[in-house]
């Protein structure tokens, strides 16, 4: 039996409390994971500054090189995993087995992580807007600006020696968000999702094998008390959860909460009559990665033709059925938490009682598919004659979308918070309004799927701004010693 210990800044620690991580379909125990206690996390945080100190001893340029090497190792090498080792194929199989995500999607996520690591130099260059990265190490630097050129001191002060993270079980794709942290010489304190210990441990193994000091990374599997201890002990944290989690941490400068994206595609008046041209991007945005990501589209808004659009998307997605996780054509992830799929479907059925809603995928058979140890929800498309029904504001962890009829001039007022908005329009006035809309995070203008990310751009706030504060700094160069 594979055992995965707590990693206390690189030191393995076997807990007396062990959690079994099981295969969602067979019930086979895949590994035992040591469960941390909150006091242990709290005590270990006394070494948080050491994590930054050991990273600062390595120039950022070298750390970026290590990231590239770590990406290759993560994607291709057999790496230590707990008291055993793990090949890339075993990793994908285990991740699929415990999260319910098909294996080919797990492999795709591996490629994505590797891509981010391989392009770390460009990503950091973009996120810092071309800053000399040594400024992050030293805390200050000199930039030359203007004509005639003037030398201006710049200072970026780290707000924390470590970034705490309470990671999810349901979407291995989110790990790309924390990959740029180590090269910025900030340590990692990770609490893995209960069903997805794999990525944090494999990534840590790859980092360490690539030369990153083990003392820079701590991993604490555990329950809610451990998540709370990670958040309490880290001056800056990322947490992944539902709407309630996001609401709880709203306005808290220490915590960046990532939840449902409510990502949308908006069809403008000028393009809606050619809606069939955009069917592929609509389907891809809803269906890819089994609809699990915050960047998956959960709402398609248009001023007319909405019923036809809903029917066309339903014709494409409605027939999709669950396939075994190892099947390369599998498009659906399993719900591995008992009762979760039932709860979601009950919620949808309840919302469908409201007038102005119509279930476009109904004719393709029942959406809730119950298996012995897991459940599936098949793609579901709901047509809404206005933005009023409750279901318009819903997002679920499977390919689900509403197709909402709404006049263009009311869309921005009605869509609510939107992580990714793909607006298909050439209307200049509307484009201006879209650019100015502060409730849209990532804006795509044109026929771009919501799931197509440009990794050189920030996601839900710039992580550099979250970790470093730009501030005024003046100095007498004859006195400066650092």
């Amino acid at each position, binding site marked *: 039996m594979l055992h995965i210990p707590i990693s206390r800044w690189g030191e393995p620690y076997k807990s*007396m409390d062990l959690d079994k991580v099981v295969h969602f379909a067979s019930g086979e125990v895949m590994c035992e994971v040591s469960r941390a206690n*909150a*006091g*242990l996390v709290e005590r270990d945080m006394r070494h948080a500054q050491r994590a930054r100190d050991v990273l600062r001893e390595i120039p950022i340029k070298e750390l970026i090189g290590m990231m590239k090497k770590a990406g290759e190792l993560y994607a291709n090498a057999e790496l230590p995993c707990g008291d055993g080792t793990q090949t890339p194929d075993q990793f994908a199989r285990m991740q699929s087995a415990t999260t319910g995500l098909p294996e080919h999607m797990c492999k795709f996520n591996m490629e994505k992580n590797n891509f981010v690591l391989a392009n770390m130099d460009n990503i950091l260059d973009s996120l810092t807007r071309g800053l000399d990265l040594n400024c992050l190490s030293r805390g200050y630097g000199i930039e030359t600006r203007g004509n005639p050129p003037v030398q201006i001191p710049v200072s970026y002060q780290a707000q924390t020696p470590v970034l705490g993270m309470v990671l999810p079980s349901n979407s291995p794709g989110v790990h790309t968000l924390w990959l740029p942290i180590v090269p910025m010489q900030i340590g990692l304190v990770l609490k893995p999702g209960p069903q997805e210990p794999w990525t944090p441990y494999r990534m840590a193994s790859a980092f360490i094998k690539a030369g990153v000091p083990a003392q820079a990374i701590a991993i604490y599997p555990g329950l809610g008390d451990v998540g709370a201890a990670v958040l309490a002990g880290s001056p800056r944290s990322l947490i992944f959860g539902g709407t309630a989690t996001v609401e*709880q941490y709203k306005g808290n400068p220490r915590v960046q909460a990532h939840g449902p994206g409510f990502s949308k595609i908006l069809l403008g008046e000028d393009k809606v009559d050619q809606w069939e041209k955009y069917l592929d991007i609509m389907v891809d945005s809803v269906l890819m990665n089994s609809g699990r990501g915050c960047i998956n589209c959960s709402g398609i808004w248009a001023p007319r033709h909405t019923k036809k659009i809903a029917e066309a998307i339903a014709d494409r997605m409605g027939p999709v059925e669950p396939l075994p996780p190892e099947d390369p054509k599998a498009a659906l992830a399993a719900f591995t938490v008992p009762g979760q799929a039932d709860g979601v479907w009950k919620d949808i059925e309840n919302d469908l009682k409201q007038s102005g809603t119509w279930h476009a995928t109904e004719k393709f058979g029942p959406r809730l598919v119950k298996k012995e140890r897991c459940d599936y929800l098949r793609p579901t498309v709901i047509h809404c004659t206005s933005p009023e029904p409750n279901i318009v504001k819903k997002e679920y962890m499977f390919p689900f979308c509403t197709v909402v009829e709404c006049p263009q001039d009311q869309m921005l007022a009605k869509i609510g918070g939107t992580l990714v908005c793909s607006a298909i329009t050439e209307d200049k006035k509307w484009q201006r309004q879209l650019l100015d809309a502060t409730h849209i995070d990532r804006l795509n203008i044109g026929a771009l799927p919501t799931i197509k990310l440009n990794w050189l751009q920030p996601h839900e706030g710039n992580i550099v701004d979250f970790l470093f504060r730009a501030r005024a700094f003046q100095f007498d160069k004859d006195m400066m010693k650092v």
Partner: protein
Amino acid sequence: MSTTATAGTAAADQVKQAQDKLDAHVREIINWHFDPDNGTPFWLDAVAGKNPLLKLDFDPRKEVKSFADLKKFGHFEDDWLRGGPLRRWVPKAFHQKPIYVFETGGTTGIPKSRVVVEDHWTDYEMFSDTLPEKYFPKGSNWLMLGPSGPRRLRLAVEHLCQYRGGICFCVDLDPRWVVKLIKKGWMEHLKAYQEHCIDQAMTVLSASHDIKCMFTTPKLLDSLCTRLEKEGTTLAKQGITGVFCGGTEMTSQWIRFAIEEFLGKDVYIAPTYGNTLMGLAAADQPVPPDYKICYYAPQPRAVAEVVDFDNYDQLVPHGQEGRVMLTTLTKELFVPRFMERDEGLRELPSSKYPWDGVSGVKPFRAFAATTTVGVY
């Protein structure tokens, strides 16, 4: 699963003697609470058909002759303890005595109340006998760092200290506010309140009060030791030799962590399990390699049983998991077969405690997801 008892397995005659003593005690307590002149109004009314919460169709004084016969009562419902009049719980024989009331829960709604005359003193005097003198020396002063207000703990720990000849220094902690902070998600306030409590404990420890013993909860012990460590010291260096720990769930992993990383070999930790209804179940200090915490109720005054999850009339075999069922049998309170909000493993009788124990106590699985536990 292991069924090793902490102090060696009890001999059969020891177990038999303890059972006989328990049966005799049951008869005495039933006679007391159901005595028409001096008994307890709640129970007398139940027999007389005048209690709207409970009607008994048998005469306990005639039909209950042993602990096993308590099954006739069904299960005590703790909701009966919400609201007044509280005098219905006081045996008529005690109506002239000063009465304490202790509450549990109460973050929202009406809390459950238990009336007490001297039980908390008796329980803690009995518990006192289980503490090793080497680490809890008589005459030492104590620090009480735990829930106060209407909880029993504050007065009980203070009495324990006084009974052992010491003076008790107390820090105020309101667990109901802690629960509210958690429910509201005000984690920064929670942290600040915790710091506020630890500040007070640090002040007491720094004031030359010659404190050698303390009561605290697992979370507060974590916080206090972490603070001491930040300030370059330890509980042992502060002169503490014995920690009586309880109030919330304790796992073997936690106690191992506390011993290995905070307490060291010079500080003894005595884990306890209990509540306002039952009193206090003691355990010896857990030891490597398994750090098993094995609790024994203060029989015959209280009995902790581990019963089948699906059939509460059936004890599980030793070493198996089940739900904890408590029975309290004192002259002040009769609580038959109360289903606790915990589950655990049934343990063999030990030579020190020749009756069943319970280990691996954790929140009952059916409630675990919905209950805020272990908050202070």
